[in-house]
């Protein structure tokens, strides 16, 4: 308790904190992909550790205080870990027939829809991301939960409008698959672009395994 740090220590820690703040802002503008977030958190943890150890004197405190501080991280990690393992694994549910249930679908329409590229000309010129987020999650060349792209191509080779029509109001045609939900909420422009892209992709040979 009675440890007195020299003034220079405090100024040095202050300098380090300011430098790390500048660093985190700088790094935020770099293209690191998924690494951006862990890097920002690591810098924040480093700053927090400096404050705890030196400004809050934990470095010079009793073992009991150190244990308490360490326990905070443990509790916080439990809070995050347990919450995320629950919520983030909820979409994994599989029905007894081994197919992904349609229970996932409402999540797609409510949550994913807002994240889809806007129906602008630019976005629709390359509908691949939109396709991957919607039709593509079930319909691929190797899918076992829905008709494959090759099958779709055989059925609708030159009939984009039919694909759109089906996507708006799908019926249950095949016993072995779960029924497809309607995608009418995507809107005409997106559906047309998707149907065009789907048929064009279906015409290409399947990618090598």
């Amino acid at each position, binding site marked *: *308790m*009675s440890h007195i740090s020299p003034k220079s220590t405090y100024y040095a820690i*202050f300098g380090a904190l300011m430098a790390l703040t500048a660093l985190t802002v700088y790094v935020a503008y*770099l293209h690191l992909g998924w690494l951006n977030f862990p890097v920002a958190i690591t810098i924040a943890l480093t700053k927090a550790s400096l404050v705890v150890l030196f400004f809050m004197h934990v470095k010079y405190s009793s073992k009991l205080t150190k244990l*308490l501080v360490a326990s*905070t991280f443990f509790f916080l990690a439990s809070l995050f870990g347990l919450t995320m393992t629950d919520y983030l694994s909820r979409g994994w549910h599989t029905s007894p027939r081994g197919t992904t249930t349609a229970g996932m679908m409402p999540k797609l329409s409510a*949550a994913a829809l807002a994240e889809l590229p806007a129906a602008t000309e630019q976005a629709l010129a390359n509908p691949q991301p939109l396709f991957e987020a919607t039709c593509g999650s079930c319909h691929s060349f190797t899918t076992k939960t829905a008709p494959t792209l090759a099958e779709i191509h055989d059925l609708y080779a030159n009939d984009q409008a039919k694909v759109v029509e089906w996507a708006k109001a799908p019926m249950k045609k095949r016993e072995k698959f779960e029924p497809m939900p309607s995608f009418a909420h995507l809107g005409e422009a997106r559906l047309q672009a998707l149907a065009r892209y789907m048929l064009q992709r279906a015409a290409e040979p399947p990618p090598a395994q």
Partner: protein
Amino acid sequence: MWIFIIQEVMFFGGLLAAYMLYRIWYPGAWSEGSAELDIYLGGFNTAVLIGSSLTMAMAVRSAQTGKQKATVNWLIITMLLGLTFLVVKAIEYEHKWELRHVPGLNFHLEPGQSPQLAIFLSLYFALTGLHALHMVIGFGILAVIAWMAWRKRFTPEWYTPVEMAGLYWHFVDIVWIFLFPLLYLVDRAQQVAH
């Protein structure tokens, strides 16, 4: 005091868990929402708060070494920096009000904006609002401690209230150290690309 701080960490931790979950679910809205926040005001406030942690640490050090006058002065500087932070925060809130981006009170989405922007902004106001409330309480605590120091109540043998107030103030600083990157810096790189 440490046990109080630990429960405070868990209190903010719950909100941060909500932040994380919705960020994973709605990355687009998070990126949009964060782009709306002023990185200069946020960065300025970060510097102000780190500075106030330094002056707080100096106040505790002055109390440890029995310099009563210096303790009072450092505490007053800390309070002024805290006040600066709150004024800047108020300016930011006012911007949000003009944009009609205050969920529950004054909210309106422009065409093309994600509806989940409301969730980001709700968490933004919950997190920064509670943080600001902690600052206001901290300001009051520092005022009492400064008054006690001015009355020469502390000695190098007994300065516990100064130390406790310091721990609280540093904790509030740490909360902001996490809020700044989480709220202001989310996906800045992606926004530049678009």
